[in-house]
């Protein structure tokens, strides 16, 4: 081992140094800014979580698994998983090995930022030593891994369909600069290391390349320009990084600890939301997932574009996109970094100021309490079920067949659960209704509350405080009745395909009990896109601006997915899905309660 330059410096490292210092400075500033934007409790919570051993370990593992190995992406799409993890993990290993080399051979240089990166230029080592052979082999191996990943990335740019992506985002101009400089970094590194391989040593990749180049490029004059080029590519990439989608690389490392600390979005642009937005890699997986994207005009309303517009500060578009969304949550379910698209939008809606704020404190709950008294089991149907009387009728009939003594608390009059107000961002108004409903339910003396509408169920489980009252969705409740032998189902001939309502599936994580019940009452089939991937029916209350003609295309698209199962009929567990599908469906649509009631003899 010998150092080739006593100074340990060459001007070609400057572009890299500038880029590195800029990006480190920018990130440090960003971290302080975001910490400052958090509320005091959140900041405390976050900082405490960093020094709590269990969360700290979890953070390290999550960062390793998601940022480097891309475990979640592997599970979803192996090609994309390989592409991302080969680049991320390979790059990480090259940086790590570079540091090890410096620490092994010239520990006094370790504080120089550029030394581990340009080690082969500054230090001549022979691959015939054990240390050199092992380290250089590993270096070449990981470089090869990255180059494979870059090759895949180039193919993906041209033909995204090979990777199972129908549509992907259009990169902005700066994104392209970042993209091309990223692509250039590693081939340039290969070239640079190959030109110095006969001096500084190399391995299975760089030494043969060195032989080839020396056949027709007989001198060493090419050495310095390629190292310059390599440094410039790195410098350009790092200088544009904060303004491109590649910001997701540092941002995700911040997002994971913040999420593990249990932080929530409280402001549409600041603090945690900001980190989420910056963490968006702009991959565009949410475009294919979005139910609105069946209409081409709506493609630019997907979460990836919301993030882009928030970064650009385009207020008009941010508002438009936020209001249009159905809040079905599929973008969140498929998102690799876990950007909470619906919550970002609700926070944006909540920032709007209205001239009038409804005040529900004057509602007299006494008659509603009187109507809810008389039994341990309460049934809250909600407005949507009252508009689809067949569901309420079937639930009542099943309860009678099971011999459950219950009270339908809002059969005649009732208050809204508050979820539509919440999704519209009118959180204070929703809380007003929530308190009223809590008062009615707690004064009724009941200990179980059954809900047949998943829209209500979601807000009841998330926002209501009902000590001593068990809140249960009717799918779970009927499952229990069947298990306890109080309901007897006989299998019919009809075959149903079950549609997962957004609010019940992705919203509350209930996927299995409705399937199990239908399986006992009739035949059951699965649609190609199901469970977490289920397509919103298009009727969602979440959207504030979509009109019926636009929704129709979405409903038909969701139905097309269900028809592919070749079942005779469609079953769902949400009154809104039922109404929406019934409008256009060629096959009969039934609610779960109706399916059960038809096959239950009592």
């Amino acid at each position, binding site marked *: 081992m010998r150092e080739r330059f006593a100074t340990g410096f060459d001007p070609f490292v400057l572009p890299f140094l500038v880029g590195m210092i800029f990006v480190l400075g920018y990130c440090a500033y960003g971290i302080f800014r975001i910490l400052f934007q958090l509320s005091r409790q959140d900041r405390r919570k976050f900082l405490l979580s960093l020094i709590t051993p269990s969360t700290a370990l979890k953070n390290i593992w999550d960062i390793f698994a998601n940022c480097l190995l891309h475990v979640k992406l592997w599970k979803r799409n192996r090609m994309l998983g390989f592409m991302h993890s080969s680049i991320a993990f390979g790059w990480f290993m090259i940086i790590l090995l570079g540091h090890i080399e410096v620490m092994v051979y010239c520990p006094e240089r370790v504080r120089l930022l550029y030394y581990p990166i340009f080690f082969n230029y500054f230090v001549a080592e022979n691959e015939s030593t054990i240390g050199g052979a092992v380290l250089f082999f590993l270096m070449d191996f990981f470089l090869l891994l990255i180059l494979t990943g870059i090759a895949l990335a180039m193919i993906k740019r041209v033909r995204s369909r090979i990777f199972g992506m129908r549509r992907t985002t259009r990169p902005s101009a700066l994104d392209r600069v970042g993209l091309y400089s990223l692509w250039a970094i590693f081939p340039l590194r290969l070239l640079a290391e190959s030109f110095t391989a006969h001096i500084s040593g190399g391995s299975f990749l760089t030494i043969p390349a060195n032989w080839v180049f020396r056949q027709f490029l007989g001198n060493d004059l090419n050495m310095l320009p390629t190292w310059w080029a390599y440094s410039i590519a790195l410098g350009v990439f790092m200088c544009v990084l904060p303004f491109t989608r590649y910001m997701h690389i540092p941002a995700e490392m911040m997002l994971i600890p913040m999420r593990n600390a249990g932080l929530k979005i409280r402001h549409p642009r600041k603090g945690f939301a900001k980190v989420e937005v910056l963490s968006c890699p702009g991959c565009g997986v949410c475009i294919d997932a979005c139910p609105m994207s069946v209409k081409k005009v709506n493609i630019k309303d997907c979460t990836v574009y919301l993030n882009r517009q928030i970064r650009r500060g385009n207020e008009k578009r941010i508002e438009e996109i936020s209001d249009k969304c159905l809040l079905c949550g599929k973008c969140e379910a498929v998102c690799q970094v876990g950007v909470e698209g619906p919550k970002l939008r609700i926070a944006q809606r909540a920032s709007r100021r209205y001239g009038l704020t409804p005040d529900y404190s004057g509602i007299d709950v006494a008659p509603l309490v009187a109507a809810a008294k008389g039994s341990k089991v309460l049934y809250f149907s909600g407005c949507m079920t009252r508009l689809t009387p067949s569901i309420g009728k079937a639930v009542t009939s099943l309860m009678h067949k099971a011999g459950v003594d219950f009270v339908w608390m809002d059969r005649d009059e009732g208050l809204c659960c508050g979820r539509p107000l919440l999704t519209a961002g009118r959180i204070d108004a929703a809380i007003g209704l929530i308190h009223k409903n809590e008062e009615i339910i707690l004064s009724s003396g009941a200990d179980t509350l059954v809900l047949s509408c998943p829209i209500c169920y979601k807000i009841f489980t998330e926002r209501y405080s009902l000590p001593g009252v068990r809140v249960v969705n009717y799918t779970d409740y009927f499952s229990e009745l069947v298990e306890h032998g109080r309901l007897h189902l006989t299998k019919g001939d009809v075959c149903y395909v079950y549609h997962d309502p957004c609010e019940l599936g992705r919203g509350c994580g209930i996927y299995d009990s409705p399937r199990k019940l239908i399986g006992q009452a009739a035949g059951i089939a699965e649609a190609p896109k199901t469970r977490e991937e289920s397509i919103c029916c298009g009727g969602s209350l979440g959207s504030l601006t979509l009109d019926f003609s636009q929704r*129709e295309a979405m409903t038909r698209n969701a139905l097309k997915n269900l028809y592919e199962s070749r079942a005779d009929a469609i079953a769902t567990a949400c009154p809104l899905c*039922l109404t929406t599908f019934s409008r*256009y469906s060629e096959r009969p649509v039934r609610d779960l309660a109706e399916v059960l009631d038809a096959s239950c003899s009592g």
Partner: protein
Amino acid sequence: MDSQTVLIIGGGVAGMEAARQLRLLGCEPVIVEKSDHLGGHVAGWHKLFPDMLSASSLIERMSESLDGITVYLKTQVASMNRLKDGFSVMLTNGTGLLCRAVLIASGFRLFEASRKEEYGYGVYDRVITNSDLEYWFNTGEDDRIPDNLSNIAFVHCVGSRDLKAGNPQCSKVCCMTAVKQAIEMKERFPDAEIWCFYMDLRLFGKKYEDFYINAQRDYGVHFVRGRVSEVSEDIDGRVILKAEDTLAGRQVKLKADLLVLMAGMLCNEDTAGLASMVRAEVDSDGFLRSRDNIFRINESSRPGIFFAGACTGTKTVPETVAEARAAALDIRNYLNGND
């Protein structure tokens, strides 16, 4: 082709009247009707406004005038192909026809009231449609209608002017039908209170307004401006309606013994199939597209294909009859080459 055969698709009021006129004009009309009787929807009706003419006697009179005209019942068109100066038609009963012109008079279908789930048609026992009520007037058979009625509610615009139901247009006849049926019910149940829930009343025709005033003044029918939001069921089977009285600006709740839904008109489901056979166009509302909606309502954009009646949009009976006559004349002129 020398024949003067004209195929008429649909044996309702439009098809029958067109056939009669075409024969008077010297053509040879052939009627194809998919149901087992002539007269279409009108045959199932009891009395027709504004003269309270008996529908069955009208259909009887019209049928008699068709003596000698070929009528294929329970038959549909299987295929239609354009020839040089006419059409070759295959019917589902195996008959083949060569005709010079085709008159599409395939009419409308009633909106399925069960699709407006909040009104509980098919779910609650005491909810019927306008068409069910006419059937009961004719036959007296309907278990859903009890012997004693003290409160009867009519809901206008069920599946009409309703984007959610996928049908934005007005069905034209239901306002007047509701007024007529309200009066008929009041005559049968003089002690009953009758309530009509409407968005606005479109009483455009001759004597319609008189009927409306009579209904209020002489029969005491209550008209409430506001849509019914939801319907639930009482323990004794009666229905409870919730609505907003938008004139009084307050919510109303009504217990009714019978709820009648004024189901609207939609284009017949097989019309699009027929249109595609001869490449006629379907309009954005699902009905057939006329050459224009002012001067050439009876004509399609294709030569030899004519329209009459509710296949091009919602129509009343007199409008349909007038269109059928006009279409007959158009066809005669077309056959004579006086286009």
